[in-house]
């Protein structure tokens, strides 16, 4: 793919990934066939900021985990009042990283 297109993609979607992953994503995208651009440019990513807000407001009900697709862990959080409050607080700091990992998994389906 053209470097210009890839850089545009990285600029608008960089916040959805960990900073150390962006270089690898960029290289993979440049090596990718041009026909996949339509798919790549329309993937919907989950915003780490949104999950942080949800985690702070409704984290002890497990809603942040449900939104990310971790249904099992969400039920675990719901049933235990957010892991007696401890897991909920740990997730305030972890949920952004988890969201970025989920986004990486999503784009990896198209990269390889």
């Amino acid at each position, binding site marked *: 793919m053209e470097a210009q297109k890839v850089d545009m993609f990285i600029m608008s979607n960089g916040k959805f990934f960990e900073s150390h992953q962006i270089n690898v994503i960029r290289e993979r995208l440049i090596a990718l066939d041009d026909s996949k651009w339509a798919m790549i440019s329309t993937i919907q990513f989950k915003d780490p900021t949104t999950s942080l807000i949800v985690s702070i407001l409704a984290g002890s009900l497990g809603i942040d985990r449900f939104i990310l697709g971790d*249904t*099992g862990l969400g039920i675990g959080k*719901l049933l*235990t*009042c957010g892991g007696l409050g401890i897991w909920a607080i740990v997730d305030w700091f972890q949920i952004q990283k988890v969201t970025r*990992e989920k986004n990486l998994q999503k784009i990896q389906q198209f990269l390889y």
Partner: protein
Amino acid sequence: MALSRNKLYSIMFIACFAGYIWLYFGLSHEQSKDKPLEVCLVKHFTNIPCPSCGSTRSVLSLIKGDFNEAFGINPMGFLIAFIMFLSPLWIIVDVTAKKNTLFNFYQKIETYLKKPQLAIPLVLIVIINWIWNITKGL
């Protein structure tokens, strides 16, 4: 799927272990007749009980064999007691036999629960239980 087999097993095992310690605390605390133990963030901040408030009391009365009281406090206690009893055994069997039946089961359940026809009724049940929790003032 990000969660690997070993990670899931260690999370569940630690959670169950912590749960048993918590139950032991609850049991010894109950006899001393102090103010009941409460750690729920939602309840502390908003004074409204959360959907799973009272599940410790529910499991404790289940241990004593009082099923009606357990249901009256919070029906979720049955589910929690069931998971807490079953999952450590299942994990031990899986780890010793080097199989991953529990992991496969977990993934299958997760995909089932994501279907709307199952998810919406379950969410409604949780909300109804929550309203019941608020009205009985746990």
